[in-house]
């Protein structure tokens, strides 16, 4: 047995997840999630059967997100999904899925491919409309979409419209995305204050 051990680090190189509070907005890095991609192979004939579940969670349709049994699944493309589960219980989520699905699915570990941020607050549409061309106000709870924010490919998951979203971006982009997001949050906050002032002015 090797004498050396490898400690995990956050996408920001820290021991603890990054948490930022800006006004009433909150951005929390999720280092406690395991992530795996799932693509149906030809063998998986009943993949669209409504009773099909992954670790107890159903698979959503186009642009959808499902949460059940502590597991989140979201649609990423035709017959493709991403599965999120607690890292604590699914350290090797991909292996768990492979053993459950066998040759029915192409499964790839994506835990470290992405960094996930939980974004919470009020009126987050105003924040996000500065970052994504998605029709954010038309996105309901349970919506999932691929988008680009400041040239970075992201997934945006809507948990509670205007109040709670999860944002995923390629892990190597973590610092840049956090910067863009926090800059936008600061701008939105400042705009709200300035608007009040300007309304008073005229």
């Amino acid at each position, binding site marked *: *047995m*090797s*004498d*050396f*051990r*490898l*400690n*995990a*680090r*956050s*996408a920001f*190189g820290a021991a603890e997840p990054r948490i930022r509070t800006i006004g009433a907005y909150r951005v929390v890095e999720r*280092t406690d999630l395991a992530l795996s*991609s799932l*693509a149906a*192979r*030809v*063998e998986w004939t009943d993949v669209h059967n409504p009773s099909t579940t992954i670790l107890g969670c159903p698979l959503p349709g186009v642009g959808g997100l499902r949460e059940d049994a502590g597991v989140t699944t979201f649609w990423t493309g035709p017959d*493709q999904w991403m599965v999120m589960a607690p890292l604590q219980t699914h350290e*090797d989520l991909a292996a768990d899925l492979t053993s459950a699905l066998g*040759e029915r699915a*192409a*499964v*790839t*570990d*994506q*835990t*470290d*491919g*992405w960094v996930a941020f939980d974004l919470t607050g009020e009126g987050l549409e105003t924040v996000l*409309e*500065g970052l*994504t*061309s998605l*029709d954010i*106000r*038309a996105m309901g709870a349970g919506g999932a979409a691929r988008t680009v924010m*400041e*040239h*970075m490919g992201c997934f945006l998951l809507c948990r509670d419209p205007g109040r709670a979203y999860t944002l995923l971006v*390629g*892990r*190597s*982009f*973590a*610092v*840049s995305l956090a*910067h*863009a997001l926090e*800059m936008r949050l600061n*701008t939105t*906050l*400042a*705009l709200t*204050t*300035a608007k009040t*002032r*300007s309304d008073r*002015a*005229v």
Partner: protein
Amino acid sequence: MTRLSGGLIDRSRTWSFTFDGKTYQGHPGDTLASALLANGVRLVGRSFKYHRPRGVFSAGSEEPNALVELRGGAHREPNTRATVAELFDGLEAKSQNRWPSLAFDALAINDRVAPFLTAGFYYKTFMWPAAFWEKVYEPMIRRAAGLGSLSGLADPDVYDKGFLHCDLLVIGAGPAGLSAALTAARSGARVVLADEDFVLGGRLTKDRQVLDDAPAGEWVSATLAELEASDRVRILRRTSVIGAFDHGVHGAVERVTDHLATVDGAVPRQTFWKIYAKRSLLCAGAIERPMAFANNDRPGIMLAGAMRAYANRWAACPADRVAIFTNNDDGHRTAVDLMAKGVAVTAVVDVRPGAKALGDYPLHAGAVVIDSRGRRGLREARIRRADGGTEWLACGSLGVSGGWNPNLALTCHQGNRPVWDDGQGLFSPGPRLPPGLSVAGAAAGVFSTHGALTGGAEGAAKALGDLGFRAQAAATPTAEDAPLAITPFWHVGGEKGRAWVDFQNDVTVKDITLAHKEGFRSVEHLKRYTTLGMATDQGKTANVTGLAVMAELTGKSIPETGTTVFRPPYTPVAIGALAGRSRGKDFRPVRRTPSHHWAEEQGAAFVEVGAWLRAQYFPRPGEKTWRDTVDREVLTVRRAVGVCDVTTLGKVDVQGRDAARFLDVIYCNGFAKLPLGKVRYGLMLREDGFAMDDGTAARLAEDHFVVTTTTAQAGPVYRHMEFVRQCLCPELDVHLISTTDAWAQYSVAGPRARDLLRKIVDPEFDISNEAFGYMACGAIRICGGTRARLFRISFSGELAYEVAVPTRHGDALMRVLMEAGAEFGVIAYGTEALGVLRIEKGHAAGNELNGQTSADHLGMGRLVSSKKDAIGTVLSRRPGLAGEDGIRLVGLESLDGPLTAGSHLFTEGDRAEATNDQGWVSSAAHSPHLGKSIALAFLKEGDKRLGDVITVANPLQGQSVRAKVVGPHFIDPEGERLRV
């Protein structure tokens, strides 16, 4: 002149502002222009070419004259239209294009020599000597002519951008726009209502109008209150929609804080919105057009509708006594409104012989204004009466109304051309409108308030009906519905003196006449020869008149003469607004490697590779140049062991029953028979047979490969693979996903690489040469159970591995490798050393795979399998690409000075010129191993010229070096070091 009564200004508060250093007072609700007029300031600028005194001409964004510089220092913004600059307390404005002062401008001498400065004068005057044009004449002309000047400093303001979506975008919040928005809001549609003004209502705020027997303002307020109460309506004030682009995308600039004296640093000055509208309704109104007469550019001469707007909305008038020059009834309305405000109307001069007065003022029917005088502002206007007699009328301001041009700029942004409406004498929107866009109100050539209100409501109902909304046109209040009464009239001919058509670019009727005389009669030629319509106002008040004058000269009708088109942006946009937040370091995102923090701690120098920031080299104390560092890193790898972060190489997971068949399609060499647990080098060709990218594919299972790509091509190759999967081979069961970010991957290279890895690989995994030979791969565990992948591949030519762990362990793995390797003298090496190592080994990289080279050129012709078909195979064999006489990758060893990448190769004794070109140097380096300058190069028939001496020339920098042609593998050509 003091303030008139009424107006939409807040007299309870008084603000101070300065113009050219002098302090004046204004009120909230004022624009800079209205405040200046209210203070009796008529002279506000100097013209572009002749430095003629100029004053406020309009009351909107079409303003050609009243351009000023606002704000100071790096914040300075030139060419701001005073007519749309909202006043705030402490505003500082400066006039432009004058020296030493606005009142006395030395360059007004230009006006005296005007006969020499006609259209195209510089094409004729400054012909000789030719060399003087660029160095002397052009700079001189540019200095003498012009508008405001830039600060020359970086724009310190913050700009933002954003995206909005709606069912209906209403552009303009006048009567048509408001009634459209009301209709849309009541249908439940999502509405964006944008207007460039800070007070909504359009002409309803500028005319004395009655709606439903009450002042129009009451209806405007009630409408806005209803719109503002709806959470499906977004009202954008101070927002100019500047372009109508494909698929219903509109660009809009919101001036967020331009009207505030001070702002919190985080608040953007302007926001650029991309508005995605399913339908849009253009309710942009109309722009009044002047009629040209001699000396019609004097301060105090302005559009009649603007004069009325200043009186009604801003309670300001440039003078106590005014006159009106008109060809339509609207001009008379100005006279009536001004009189109602107590302004003396000297006369209304109407070109129509049968014109009737609408009020009690002197009317000269069938008369024209033929001249004006007054040194820095209008004092008198000379008219020629219907009876042919002339007289001078005393007036401090003259309102000119030649009719109104529909403001149809946005209808032209996708190639639509306006059509001439002979009945009304105007251009109206052409039939090929941008998809989804319709037009209502004055922009559509409907000029009565009733017409605008109903047109807006019906336009919105129709647009939303198309989308499936049950939209009913909102009931409109009763309003004036006077028919358009106009006799088109463009310019007063037959008099001496210059009559201005384009005020901002100083283009006169004479210039157009000259252009006509000299054969520049097509509208496009006219524009370029005279610069008509090419200033910052884009000829909003000039284009149609210019066209009409040309039509008169050619004897053709206006539609026969041509038409005018508009391109985005509708009004000038600060470059900063277009850039938004993408500036400086925020221009694009940065990708950081797993060892980034560690490398920073080591004081590494970084280099941008695409979006990645990679460690370039790791300097140590005592090393004087980067070369010292790189030489040490290279030699340590060759002698002991080095570690390099290679996470940036693209990694694509390929799975499925047909994964191997898929690889056989994308790579020119075979993969079907690659044994499990083995890696193979692969070369991808483009469809046209040229090399696209190279990398490796590792077989982790029968139906599972990991493909690696070069760092630079990771994105394009992945896109290509998806294209092949989805479009070319949809029948294959194959699934792709990028795992580039998921794995931290380090190259561990050098004779002690295995010794180092043995210390961290968990003991149940045998990595001996026998068990884990060259090109082996497999899933292993390291450091007590951490999942990892090991690949025995080498880019350096040494015994080497690449070890990958889930990225969250990447930082720790780098630290562990350094600690565990200390006893072997381990070092970290960066991209520079990586480059030197691979050049020494003769491995192709991005410089060699530059899109112009084939497998044959790279010396890998035999790699292209003849046993199967793959993308690019057939075309790689086409004549000209596959010939024996083509270029070949060779090595070069310098015989004297250093070799430079990009140099070209010549046979010794030949002149270094294109006809003698024998190839080029693709990569060059100093080889610390060989102690000399070496290079990889493509040389014509290079494989047959080993041992030759050739000339390596870089004529651009005057370099010429002799070099010996050798094989591309400078070290260990047999590859023995890889296999130990």
